[in-house]
Structure formats: structure tokens, C-alpha cells
């Protein structure tokens, strides 16, 4: 069976890997207002994410199946359908942003004579295969990847040890408390978006919830941002292009050149897992609306959607801060509404 609903133990590594990467590239490239205090944003975001995590937990407690199924038993089908469509659209949009970024970064690293738009085509292949293979296989792949991450990260950290400057963390509040809070909301939005797969996950041998692992993802992202900040001094210029910003991260001249290959492997590996995780989640939400849709056309449609959205934006989907800042609010509101409806006991026809 190609696309199966994942169990929680399979959804978990997918979500953790996606969370870490989404927050990391968001803070490094997209939302840079906190400046050198960006390392605090994942931790602040975790605090802001708590209500969302609580809502997820409540949704899983009101029935024996996945949170989505539990809600579907109590909420009118059209509402569920609209919500699923909204979630799928958001996930496709975010995956398109990640795909565009991956294409641009490969353009910068080696393929500078190739248009980033053409470099989206291999990602269409990845999306197609990920949806066809399914969330369970993706979860196993993500679990393997997460096992390798510490090894790669330690190699890079140790090799760069002599290049860190702790003084560049100060002033400690960076862009200011307001910007840190905004960054926290951004991170909470990233965490909420990437944890949408949890809504669909069936209960299995994993007994715990998502929150401890979300906390781990936030801590890891925070640590990575902290170490990165010690390598890149705070710059207040606002005219850096995306290529320049990617260059700072991946081709940082203060770093020893030899572990750059490890950095590139980490970057591409994480991006591929992030894109796959979001697209697979979108595909699963679409299947809740159209359960009879065959997998192959769905996979092709997702691949076209991701690459189409990315290409239409010139391969760089710049997140509008207004949208992003409100992303958490949008997702949180949607989930809260569903939960409220469910708890109030409204029943509707199942899809």
C-alpha cells in the first residue's frame, strides 16, 4: 500500500526533522529582524506553541483514532473539508518556498550557470516519489536521518571551535524584545505548520505526545543559531540578497573549508526531508477530502503544485512578514475552532 496514514512513531521523526529545518532557514534567511538574538526565538516560539500543542493533545484525547478522525466525527464535514483544503494549501505554499530555496542554494553552491527554475525539476521528482512512497517510509527515512545528524553536527562544531567569537552574541537582546517576540511567533508558526501531520497520525506504540520532541527541536535549532551567530558578526544591512545570505551560511569564509561538504550534505538532506514532509502532509489532507483519488495523479499534482508555485515566484518565495507572523494565528485559530466545535459536541456527516 503506497500512501498509508502514519502512526505517531512514524510521524514524529518527520515532524522533528521538518521543524528544525523550517525554523533554521526561516531565522537565517527569511526573518532576520531579531539579528544576533535569533537563537532565542525558537525557545520563545516553543512557549507560544504550547497552546497549539495542548489543542493537538486534546484532539487526540477525545477519541481512539487520529486527532483528525476524532474531530471529523464531531464536526460537520464541510468544515473539515475546508480546513483540510486550507491546511493543504498552506503546506504546499511552504513546501514551494523550501523548494525554491533549495534550488537557489544549489545554484549558488555549484550550478551557477543553470537557472534555479530548472533546478526545481529534480525536486518535482523528489516530491512525486515522496508522495507515492508514503508517510510511513518518510518517517523511517527521517528517523535514520535524525540519527546521523548529531554525528555531522559534532564534526562541524568541533572543526570550527577555534573560529567562534562569543562576543558576537552581545548585545544579548539583538534587534529588541519586540523583534524577538515576532521571531518567536514566526517559529511558533513554523512549528505549528510542520506538526500538522500529527493531526493525521494514528495512535501506536508511541505513548508520549509531540511536545517533548517539539521542545527538543526548538533546543537544537536554538543551539545551531547560537553557534552560527558566533561565526557571523551582526550586520544591520538590509540590502543583502538571498544569494548573499545563503553564501554567509554555507560558504562562510571564517569557517574551515574542509567540512563544507558536511555542511552541504546537512543542508540538502534537511531541505529534502522538509519538502517531503510538508508535501506528504498536504497529500494526506487532500486524501481526507478525496479518499478515492489514486496515488499517482495525486503525487503528480503535488509535484506540479510545488514547483509551479515556486517557479511563479521566481524560485524565491519571500515570506511576507505579515503572513508569516500571522501564520501561527491562522493555524491556531483553525485548530481551536475545530476543537471547540468538537468539544461542544456538534455532529456532522462524515466525509
Amino acid at each position, binding site marked *: *500500500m503506497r500512501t498509508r496514514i502514519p502512526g505517531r*512513531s*512514524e510521524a514524529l*521523526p518527520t515532524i522533528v526533522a521538518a521543524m528544525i529545518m523550517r525554523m533554521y532557514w526561516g531565522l537565517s534567511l527569511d526573518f532576520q529582524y531579531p539579528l544576533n538574538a535569533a537563537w532565542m526565538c525558537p525557545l520563545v516560539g516553543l512557549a507560544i506553541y504550547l497552546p497549539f500543542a495542548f489543542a493537538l493533545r486534546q484532539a487526540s484525547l477525545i477519541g481512539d483514532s487520529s486527532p483528525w478522525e476524532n474531530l471529523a466525527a464531531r464536526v460537520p464535514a464541510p468544515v473539515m473539508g475546508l480546513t483540510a483544503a486550507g491546511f493543504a494549501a498552506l503546506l504546499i505554499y511552504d513546501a514551494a518556498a523550501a523548494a525554491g530555496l*533549495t534550488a537557489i542554494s*544549489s545554484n549558488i*553552491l*555549484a*550550478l551557477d550557470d543553470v537557472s534555479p527554475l530548472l*533546478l526545481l525539476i*529534480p*525536486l518535482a*521528482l*523528489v516530491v512525486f*516519489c*515522496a508522495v507515492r*512512497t*508514503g508517510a*510511513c*517510509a*518518510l*518517517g*523511517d*527515512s527521517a*528517523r*535514520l536521518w535524525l*540519527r546521523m545528524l548529531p554525528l555531522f553536527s559534532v564534526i562541524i562544531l568541533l572543526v570550527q571551535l577555534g573560529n567562534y567569537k562569543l562576543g558576537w552574541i552581545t548585545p544579548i537582546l539583538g534587534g529588541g524584545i519586540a523583534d524577538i517576540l515576532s521571531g518567536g511567533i514566526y517559529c511558533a508558526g513554523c512549528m505549528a505548520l510542520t506538526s500538522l501531520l500529527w493531526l493525521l497520525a494514528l495512535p501506536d506504540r508511541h505513548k508520549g505526545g509531540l511536545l517533548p520532541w517539539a521542545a527538543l527541536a526548538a533546543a537544537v535549532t536554538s543551539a545551531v543559531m547560537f553557534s552560527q551567530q558566533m561565526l557571523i558578526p551582526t550586520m544591520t544591512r538590509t540590502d543583502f540578497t538571498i544569494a548573499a545570505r545563503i553564501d554567509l551560511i554555507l560558504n562562510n569564509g571564517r569557517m574551515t*573549508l*574542509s567540512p*563544507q*561538504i558536511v555542511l*552541504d*550534505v546537512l543542508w*540538502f*538532506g534537511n531541505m*529534502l*526531508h522538509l519538502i*517531503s514532509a510538508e508535501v506528504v502532509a498536504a497529500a494526506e489532507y487532500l486524501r481526507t477530502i478525496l479518499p478515492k483519488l489514486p496515488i499517482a495523479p495525486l503525487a503528480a499534482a503535488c509535484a506540479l503544485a510545488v514547483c509551479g508555485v515556486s517557479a511563479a515566484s521566481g524560485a524565491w518565495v519571500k515570506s511576507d512578514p505579515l503572513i508569516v507572523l500571522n501564520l501561527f494565528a491562522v493555524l491556531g485559530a483553525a485548530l481551536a475552532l475545530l476543537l471547540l466545535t468538537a468539544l461542544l459536541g456538534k455532529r456532522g456527516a462524515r466525509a
Partner: protein
Amino acid sequence: MRQFTEFKARCAPGKLPGAILSPGHSLANYSHTDSDNGGANLNEKPNSDLLRASVSARLDESMDALRTILNAPRNEDAIFREYSAGNLRVCAVYIEGMADETKIGEFVLHALKAGGGAEDGAPPEERLRRSMLEIAQLSEVTEYAEAVQMILSGMTCLLADGAGEALMLETRNYPHRGVEKPTNELVVNGPQEAFNEHLRTNITLLRRYVQSPELICEKLYVGTGVPTQVALVYMRGVASEELVAEAKRRLMCIQSPTVMGAGEVQQLIEDRPFSLLPQMLQTERPDRAASCLTDGQIAILVENSPYALIAPATFFHLIHASDDSFLRWQYASAIRIIRVLGLLISLMLPALYIAMSVFHNQLIPMALLTSIAESRANVPFPIVVEVLFMEFSFYLLNEAGLRTPTQIGSAFGIVGALILGQTAVSASVISPILIIIIALTGLGNYVIPNYELGVGLILYRLMLIAFSAALGLYGLMIGMFLIVLHLCSIRSFGVEFFAPMSPRRRHNPDLLLRLPVWMQKRALFYAKRDSWLHQEARA
């Protein structure tokens, strides 16, 4: 364990046991449309009506029937030896060369003569069985189909006038290879026995290693046209019942007219035949098979195949070697790590070389880059063509070395060194650095203990070469991601390919590092949880 829903493509709907011959089933089932078969039409076999018939009490009729079925006298191997013991007329039917004629002479004919004559009113077959025959094993059959199958396997069929049954006597003795040393799974420290083509011998080897009454050996026949005997071996109470039932179901679902060896059985029953990597472990070592049985796996032995098929098999089974358990744990662990590194080198080194020298040359120190450039200055081909040429030459040598008669096999060492070494470099067809790359790749391939895994990796390697030649490190990462994603999606009898690492399952500290044997007490995740054989680690 996952449900076994992957395996459905090669099984006819209705899931007839279309190729089984076990007590209660007849050979005649192969040859007609059966409602249990979901409407599938089987080809009519010759003499199918006769095959379905019961053994006649009249000796002449039975003999005629068997002559017809066995195509005697045209088929000169089929021997019909009539004999009279007192007033009892009997006929021994056997295949020359398959049955031991000495046994027939001494323990059947001579015994009949010695014990003939006494009549106590019992049916002839009863008299023969109880007091006249001196053979160790015998059984009764009532249908010609069963009798013929057993005659063809080397047993002797004794027909008696007045008996409504045929007696099948164990007289099998045909030439076969003895128990020899393993050829593909060599170890330094450990047993030096290997399976051979004789099913009985292979089962006996397993019984020697696992001397337990819970070792169960169920025999089946597969092949709707020409049946081949297969033994399903497992440990009751250790292997899970679902696994055993699933293995039986898959064997029963084989619809192929002929099944000529373990390799074909594997292809017919594995979950993903189109996957490049195997989902069952083939081993020629009885000690390895026995170890797998005690872990809760099942073994399938096939007549005329010197291998056992073990299932379920994960990636870790494929990279473990037999002597890992025989060595001290530190060395075994180090060897395993080297093996995994060899596997990664074999898979990725040529692709990485292409990616770095063509797309990411800033990652190569300038001194080395200059050496590469200088060595390639006179080579007319791009790096990719060079790599593919060397890979192809290597495979050619490999394959030629396998097929060449031993007498001239040693010449290949010289040919290989000449072609792949000095001459190609001197002629500037390839660069010297590539020799090192390909040599390391080949060595990495040969440290993989499982042949099928090694062959599968060759094909994955070609795929990665294509990806990295086109897109550099980006392409290489995409290729690796797709490979890992695919491998994570395949199952072996419901078990995930990278289990117990991903997904996380109950296991002993014996995946990449092999910790001491005395620390490995837990039953593995695919075994019965409360297995009598293992001490469970209590939480």
C-alpha cells in the same frame, strides 16, 4: 509486525493452494479448474483422470495404470519388478538410479521371500507392512498421483494383488554432492560446512545444529507442472505463528509451472520483486541458518538448491557475516564498522569523485586538484565517461572470472592488471587516480558478505553516478534520498527493511556494534514475544 498486505500481485485471487502436495491434496488438483481457485484455469496434465483415480486392488490394473502414467516401457528408467512371495503377487515399481536397488533386493524382495507364505487372514498390505517387509520407513497411499510423485522422488512403490493401497518404501539413494566447504561465505573462525543440493541432507544439517523437538520441518511441493519439494523450517514457539502462516500462504500461492531453485522461490514470494535489494537472506551455511531459526526467523529449503532462504531479512541481516558471532566482540564490532564504511564507499565514492572534481572543486586541496588535472590532461574523455568505462571493465572482469573454467581463470589476474592497470593509463585512456577510486570501490563491494546486496549496490551506484554527473552534490543527495526512501518503503514479510533501527523495535545490541553474546538475551521483534527460548529483559 505490519500486515502482510504487500504480497498480492503474484497470487491468483481466491488464493488456491495451487501447487501444494501435502497429505489431503492430490496431484490432480494441478490440472483442472477448481472453484477454490477463483476460476483460474490450469492446463490439463496428461493422464489427469488416471492420476486422480484410486489404486486398484487388482495388481494387473494397477501396473497398467502406473505404466501408462510413467510412460513405460518407452521410459526405460521406470522399472516394474514383479515378484511372488508364496501366493502373494507383488510388483515393485521404482525409477532406476533414484532408488537403491540393493535395498530393494535385500530388504524387500529377499524379505518377502523369507516371510512369504504365512496367511493369517489379514489384508495383503497389512501382512506386508507388519511382518514381511524389513524396510525402515514405509507409508500407504491410495491415489496414483501421490504414488507417482513418491516414485519420482526415489521411493519404491509396492503393489500387491488384492491390496487397495500401495505401499511406499523409503529406498531413496541417488548420487549427490557431499557436504563441502562453503564457497561464498568463507569464515576464518567457524564451521566449514555448507548446504548441498540434497534436501534431506540440508534438513539433517539443520537438525544437527538445532537439536530440539520444537524444530518443525513442514514439506510442501511447489510448481504446478513439475513439482519441486520445499521444506519450511521453523522453531515452534519462537517464530511467530503469523509469520509461519504467511510463509505457507505465499508458498501455496505460487502458480508457476516449474520452480527450479531457491532463487526462483525467492522471486516468487518476496514482497517487492522489482526492488534492487533482496528481501530474503540466502545463505549456504547451516550454522547461519540455525542461528536465524533460533532468532525466530523461518528457513525455506528447496530441493536441488544449496541455499536456505531466510525470512524476514532486514538490511542488518544482509551486512552481518557468519563469523561476527565467533569473534571477540571488539574485533567483530570493528569489522562491522569497516564493512559499513566499505558499503558506503562502494555506493558513493565514484559519484562523490565526479561531483567534487566537476562541480565542487573548491573542496579538493589545490595540490590534489593539480594532480588530478595533470593526470587527466591527456585523457580524451570526460570524467563521467572514464568512470563508466572503468566500472564496465570491472564488471566485465568480474563476470568473466565467474564464467571462465578454472584452468584459465588465473590468466584473468594478468589480463585485469594489464587492461585496467598500466596499459590503460599509459595509453591515456584513463587517469591513474581513477584506478584508485575504482579499486577502492571494488574492495568496498567485496567486503559486503551478501552477494545479492553487493549486486544491488552496483546498480544503485550507477544511478548515483548519473545523478552526480548531472547535478553534483545536489544530485547525489537527491539520489541518496530517493534510495533511502525506497528502501524504507520495502518490507520483508511485513518487517521494515531498516528495522529495528528505523522504525525502532525491540532488539539486542547487535546491529552495527556487536556487544558480547551474554548481553544479547532479548527475543527479537519478529519473534514471539514470550518465546520460551529467550530470557526477556524485564523492564
